């Protein structure tokens, strides 16, 4: 079974991935949605066609307009955000919005080109599970979480900027 990193009570851990990522909408339609992460576009088409769906998890591409579906997304068990390449930083803003503006408090997973040196940024923007790119050593990647103890600015993990704590304020 593939592995992911999940933050459990604040501690990143490598564990088995009990979800299957379905990349293409055609494939999603052919399978039972149980424990599958399907494309948001597929979920949207189900809603538009008023077909009953028991979809439990979706993944969002940075081009998707997810904000128009926020109420429907609340019933999900997992929301995943795709990084088509690690250089595409839109997923950080998507995660920040899901967590801070839309109060998503379920599992938020980074998928796609997820690499070790980006994990800490992703965590700060509210991701709590990480499907590290398959060709990378996940036990190596997990080491990257403890490089930093100082955070200047507020983010999802801690909205209070350092200046509100400095000098015991």
């Amino acid at each position, binding site marked *: 079974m593939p592995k992911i990193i999940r933050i459990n009570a604040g501690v990143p851990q490598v564990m088995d991935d009990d979800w299957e990522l379905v990349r293409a909408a055609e494939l999603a339609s052919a399978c039972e949605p149980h424990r599958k992460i399907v494309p948001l576009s597929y979920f949207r088409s189900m809603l538009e066609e008023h077909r009953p769906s028991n979809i439990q998890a979706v993944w969002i591409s*940075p081009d998707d307009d997810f904000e128009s579906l926020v109420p429907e997304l609340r019933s999900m068990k997992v929301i995943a955000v795709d990084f088509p390449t*690690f*250089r*595409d*930083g*839109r997923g*950080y*803003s*998507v995660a*920040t919005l899901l967590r801070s*503006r839309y109060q998503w408090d379920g599992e938020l997973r980074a998928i796609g080109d997820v*690499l070790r*040196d*980006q994990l*800490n*940024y*992703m*965590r*700060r*923007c509210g991701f709590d599970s990480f499907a590290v790119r398959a060709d990378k050593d996940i036990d*190596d990647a997990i080491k990257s979480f403890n*490089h*930093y*103890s*100082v*955070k*200047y*600015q*507020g*983010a999802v993990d801690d*909205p*209070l*900027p*350092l*200046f*509100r704590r*400095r*000098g015991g*304020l």
Partner: protein
Amino acid sequence: MYQYDEYDEVLVRERVSEFRDQVARRLSGDLSEEEFLPLRLQNGLYNQKHAYMLRVAIPYGVLSSAQLRMLAHIARRYDRGYGHFTTRQNIQYNWIKLEEAPDILQELATVQMHAIQTSGNCVRNITTEQFAGVAADEILDPRPLAEILRQWSTLNPEFAFLPRKFKIALSASKEDRAAVRMHDVGVYMHLNAAGQKVLRVFAGGGLGRTPILSSQIRDDLPWQHLLSYVEAILRVYNRYGRRDNKYKARIKILVKALGVDAFAAEVEQEWLHLKDGPSTLTEDEYERVAHFFRQERYEQVDAHDPTFERQLADNKRFAQWVKRNVREHKVPGYASVTLSTKPGAGVPPGDVTAEQMEHIAAWADEFGLGEIRIAHEQNVILPDVRLRDLHALWYRAVAQNLATPNLGLLTDIIACPGGDYCSLANARSLPIAESIARRFDDLDFLCDLGELSLNISGCINACGHHHMGNIGVLGVDKDGEEWYQVTIGGAQGNESALGKVIGPSFRAEEMPGVIERLVETYCQVRVEGEAFIDTLARVGAEPFKANVYHHAV
């Protein structure tokens, strides 16, 4: 100046250890070059023509003497004995070994310096003007907010992988000396009618392939909202900026595509969610940071120093230097001194040797208050010198070839490293700067010409700000040969303008002659006391073109 506390110290050390680990993984092959690229860029490391180049951050252009000594040490120990000050108020070293980069960063950390986000698609070094805190025309000191922005942008997790680089500049004087409107975001601080500190925010400026001056998107923003407002701008840009084409990825293209009003409305809408949130600045934080910049060591001295006035009267060359390179200070009895890094042919603009850096650091301690500034014109400033010490300083600066009285004149050339170092160049810029400096080596003639800026870039990226020069020179490639395109009419400051191309480009050897024709035209048609740029505005480009191309055929 700003002093690190425990948090800042720890963060910079954590960064060094992270980068050391990344370099080790690159060297062992764990990281591909493609994966390593953005990581090294965010640590200031480029792979250039001959070697790696390291760009060290000089936040808002402010240095202590100890920091400058460290920069000299780095130049000697890890480079070839010099460094290059840039139009972004940073310093670049051109001959770096990848294996040594972590050690350099570790040494820099001992004097509270780093290379974080000096490159890459993230928020870059925040810039302001070189006379911040001492300028007589200052409305407010921009440095505290610049430092607050520095901290906010450092390792900001949401904005480390933007569509493209992002540059922010602040100015808070009557005159804009920070080229604010050519930045992605530019902020003018001022006092409103009620006497409150407010911000006028511009967005969408930048040079490069598509040069655009930024547009105002907000006025009268209370300073407490600086961070949340910039966050709103960056979020809109991060989500909607183009990523399909590197040349269309800057925020200026987004602002242009949406239209300024629609862009501003998007930002405003985003900001409503962030307004008054935890990143709203507090008076306490402002005071904490501002405290570090307040200079309390000024002596009570007379505004007129009789010795200084005698020295001025007795020594014409000294007087000439004072007139050009020494500026009024807001504290009586003090002045700000610009040390020109452009002594003429033979020294690339912005290049300073380790030995010169050590001398400058010593002068800052002896004649000033231990502080140094870097200007975007690539010169070095001693901001606080007592009038009575100016003569002694001048004497020593002459010996170090740093006292050329050409500030703001034609030979105060801004030039990028061009084809001599840069792998993106289409043409060399330094030999052009050199040949022009050689042709115009008569100081009296230059002084008579007055203010005239000349900027040179080796390619369309515009690192030498050629669009903003009264005369701009751009290196272009034609069938593998180096050619130079000339623009006139560019200007920085309150009346910022982008230059216009005068016609077909020239060969390197023609360039000094072309500049001569432009200057000649100016001398023929100017009226008494009129600057080059004003003459051009009055008579238009035609007489200039006619003279240049008449002679060229």
